[in-house]
């Protein structure tokens, strides 16, 4: 598919460095965890999770994201997608635990919306660096929310992993995780020690070029799975013994260790 020319219909400033852009293009079939390639004309095209059927939630980090922050309502971006494998939608009787750090709340929030709409109980551990950056806390209204901030400005001071260490995960049928890779890997290790990683799903990031599973830029060791196509969501079992938590590759294909 060619990029769909999409008009920005609304912009929500979530925090100084994070904005949600709503579009006149709606991806009704999208599954939480799936992403779109977002073309910022004249700059770059970058992957972004759908934080809703017609929205992306963007942290300003570099060229493309900074250019996005210069756009206003009525401006356009090109959207291709939805691509990739999303999260497994929980069954009606299942207990779920959400673990989200920073802008990692973006792919988890639409899952929380579903869980809430279905009346299932879903517990959340939501972390960020400081209270300003707690993303989508109001969308995790499907159950208890434990907040952690690195600087202690709200909730528990520390990391989501500190909270997780004290949480009994045996109650949960499914655990959904997204955040910086270091955080996700620590979560993975805790769960693994409890043999609970196989009921957890992690949404990964790698450098994407094609975004459609052809070029191989995003393939992971040792199985050569593509994050853009076979992921970005992987079951914890699939990640065992992989590069996850250890290294990724830059746009030239060189390894960069975390």
């Amino acid at each position: 598919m060619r990029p769909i020319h999409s008009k920005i219909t609304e912009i929500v400033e979530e925090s100084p460095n994070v904005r949600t852009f709503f579009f006149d293009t709606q991806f009704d079939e999208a599954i939480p965890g799936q992403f779109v390639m977002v073309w910022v004309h004249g700059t770059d095209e970058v992957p972004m999770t759908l934080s809703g059927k017609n929205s992306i939630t963007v942290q300003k980090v570099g060229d493309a994201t900074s250019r996005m922050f210069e756009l206003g309502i009525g401006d356009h971006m090109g959207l291709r997608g939805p691509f990739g494998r999303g999260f497994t939608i929980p069954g009606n009787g299942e207990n779920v635990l959400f673990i989200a750090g920073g802008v990692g709340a973006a792919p988890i929030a639409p899952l929380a919306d579903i869980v809430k709409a279905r009346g299932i109980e879903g517990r959340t551990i939501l972390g960020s660096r400081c209270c300003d950056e707690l993303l989508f806390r109001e969308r995790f209204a499907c159950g208890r929310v434990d907040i952690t901030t690195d600087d202690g400005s709200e909730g528990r001071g520390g990391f989501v992993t500190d909270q997780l260490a004290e949480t009994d995960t045996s109650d949960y049928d499914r655990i959904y995780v997204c955040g910086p890779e270091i955080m996700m890997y620590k979560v993975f290790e805790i769960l693994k020690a409890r043999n609970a990683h196989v009921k957890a799903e992690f949404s990964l990031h790698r450098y994407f070029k094609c975004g459609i599973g052809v070029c191989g830029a995003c393939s992971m060791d040792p199985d050569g799975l593509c994050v853009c196509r076979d992921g970005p969501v992987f079951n914890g079992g699939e990640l065992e013994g992989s590069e996850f938590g250890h290294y990724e590759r830059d746009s030239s294909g060189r390894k960069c260790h975390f």
Partner: protein
Amino acid sequence: MKVAGIELKNPTILASGIMGTTGAALARMSRNGAGAVVTKSIGPVPKKGHNNPSMVELECGYINAMGLPNPSYSGFCEEIGIAKGKMDAPLIASIFGGNAAEFTEVAKGLLSSKPDCFELNVSCPHAEGYGASVGTDPDLVHEITASVVDAVDVPVWVKLTPNVTDITSIGRAAESAGASAIVAINTVRGMAIDIHSGYPILGNRFGGLSGPAVKPVAVKCVYDLYEALDVPVIGVGGITCPEDAIEMILAGASAVEIGSAVHDDTQIFVKISKGIDTYLQKYGYSYTEDITGLSHEMI
């Protein structure tokens, strides 16, 4: 089957630039049935490639301008080692450079990782100073090929661009310089524009067309090269099913490479090599070579 100096497990080969950035990905394609695998094209220095969009699916194919991203030969030796450790299909190292010296430097730099064959990319249509910039000049192609052939002790294949007035003159240059096979084709120069924003869609503005749209172009190039040359021709361009592969083989291909079709089906290699076998059986042939170039005899 032995083709152009290497022992393929079957006539379907993973094309360069597709799932060829890591050893693990190459080994995966071998598990998925590829009879051999070609690496992403590797150059003398690390290259990030062009800005995105770098590959987009169009109405009847794909357009891409990756810009030859690669970690350079020194960064890539390890990946070849990993691939070779995980598979027994032959590994063909695709390499590029701006001139004969660079090509040779890269080839020599990769030799320690023991690739089974080199494929010289003198055909990428969208990398300034590389690829087709050198591959449209028969003399340069001759010089580059001769230089690499001289430097290595494994077969050297040369991959050509269709974006020339006469592909056979380039093929002849490579053959006379010692190429063991000619691979045709790399992508066809093309471009797509987003009519709403007015922007060319690729970050590089233009790029190369691949997939179904280019198959008739590839078939014609293979047909002409088969007639013009003595060395085997490897057919590539738009193959998505056994019928496409057979068409290419009847045109003159000794084996085929498959690129874009991995998008629709990562198991494409098994499917196509099985399909070729079924065809051979149905029509009473024993080997792929029995039908290579057969269309030339139908008059």
